[in-house]
């Protein structure tokens, strides 16, 4: 399905229960919500709980005709997610969970999320992605590769890492930007191409 932006037709198809539109909605916003929540919640289960509640409330609002601005569907989903997240924090605080893993402050470092392959259909794509990432990392000078390792894998303080490597934060941003741009070619190909495992 070609997708340029959300509009009234998209919302109508969702409301009518068109399963392709529903699938697109689910995959599209699952990805964005997971990225959004990865820096706020530490456990995969908590992220999935918030995601599911967000979707449930969205579909209630959809059925009740509360999508007034279809072109802003994305920010509507985002605002629902923010409300659910706030309630999640409050519930965790009420249960005295400030010392457990599901309550994060905004200053906490992002935690790595597991990347479970939930079904074998995604296995080949995951291997292709890892191969591409490996190629990109192999192309980097050793110093840049170590810099990314210290920041992403070792999760050291970024200012300290930059000092150790004699670079500034802008260098790190540019490094990430260039690596991301190299990776995006494969990413866009996988997301635009028809399903390769279906006929």
């Amino acid at each position, binding site marked *: 399905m070609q*997708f*340029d*932006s*959300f509009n009234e037709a998209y919302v109508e198809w969702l409301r009518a*229960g068109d*399963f*392709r539109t*529903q*699938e697109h909605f689910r995959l*599209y*916003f699952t*990805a*964005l919500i997971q*990225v*959004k929540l990865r*820096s706020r919640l530490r456990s995969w289960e908590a992220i999935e709980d918030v995601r599911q509640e967000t979707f449930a409330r969205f579909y209630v609002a959809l059925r009740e005709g509360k999508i007034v601005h279809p*072109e*802003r*569907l*994305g*920010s509507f*989903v*985002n605002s629902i997610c*923010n409300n659910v997240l706030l309630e999640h924090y409050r519930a965790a605080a009420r249960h005295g969970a400030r010392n457990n893993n599901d309550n994060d402050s*905004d200053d906490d*470092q*992002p935690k*790595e*999320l597991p*990347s479970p392959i*939930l*079904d*074998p*259909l995604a*296995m*080949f794509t995951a291997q292709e*992605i*890892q191969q591409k*990432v490996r190629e990109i*990392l192999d192309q980097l000078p050793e110093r840049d590769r170590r810099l*990314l390792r210290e920041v*992403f*894998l070792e999760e050291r303080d*970024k200012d300290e890492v930059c000092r150790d490597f004699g670079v500034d*934060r802008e260098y*790190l*941003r*540019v490094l*990430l*930007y260039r*690596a*991301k741009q190299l*990776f*995006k070619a494969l*990413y*866009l190909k996988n997301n635009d191409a028809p*399903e390769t*495992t*279906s*006929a």
Partner: protein
Amino acid sequence: MDDDAVVRQKMTERYLLNELDPQARDKFEEHYFDCPNCAADVHAGALFVEQSKVVLRAEDHKKIQFESKAPSVERMAVPPGPGWFGWLRPAFAVPVLALLLAVIAYQNRANVLLQQAVDSPQVLASAVVNLNVRGAEPISVPARGGQAFGLTLNLPPGGRFSSYKLDLYSPRGKLQWSRTAPASGDTLSLYVPAGVSGGDHDPGTLAVHGLAAGGGSEDLGRYPIELQNQK
């Protein structure tokens, strides 16, 4: 916030590096949730970061495995002085060290061959399953026990189901794993890794359920899997 500002200020990179204050972060999220271009940029970046960790960690793991398996030559060095270690004289130590070096060389070669085997394209044994046909027809797969294979499931026409639940049971009836896959197209491809049923020659039975968007579920059959080339 517009796309030009996002690129100019490297908002995606700042966001992924957690450099934005909460207000700027919230504003950027509101933007990319509405903007497919920026959403793709953020998602691609996040995917790259997460997979980099996987790749880098796997390299560390390989390095640690190699280092832990290779015996340390220094530990076999002949200490000076007489006494209990006196028997480790060069007459004995030299052939022992030569043997250890041969083991290391062999292990290196084996690792190279193993890596080549993993990286080489391989033909995957596979079979087709028609979910349209009700019944318990066995799936005959031209594979050996302990060999990976693929299954192509022909989905029922009409798009009745939004997703499919696949359960694999061992020959003894124990649930080995369960997966849910969205319905997309006319087929689903399933990759069954080697040794999925803990070494049993026949992997067991595949049970398929169609899941409707409204919440219903329909049994689409149980298919015993038979491996044709058991030896």
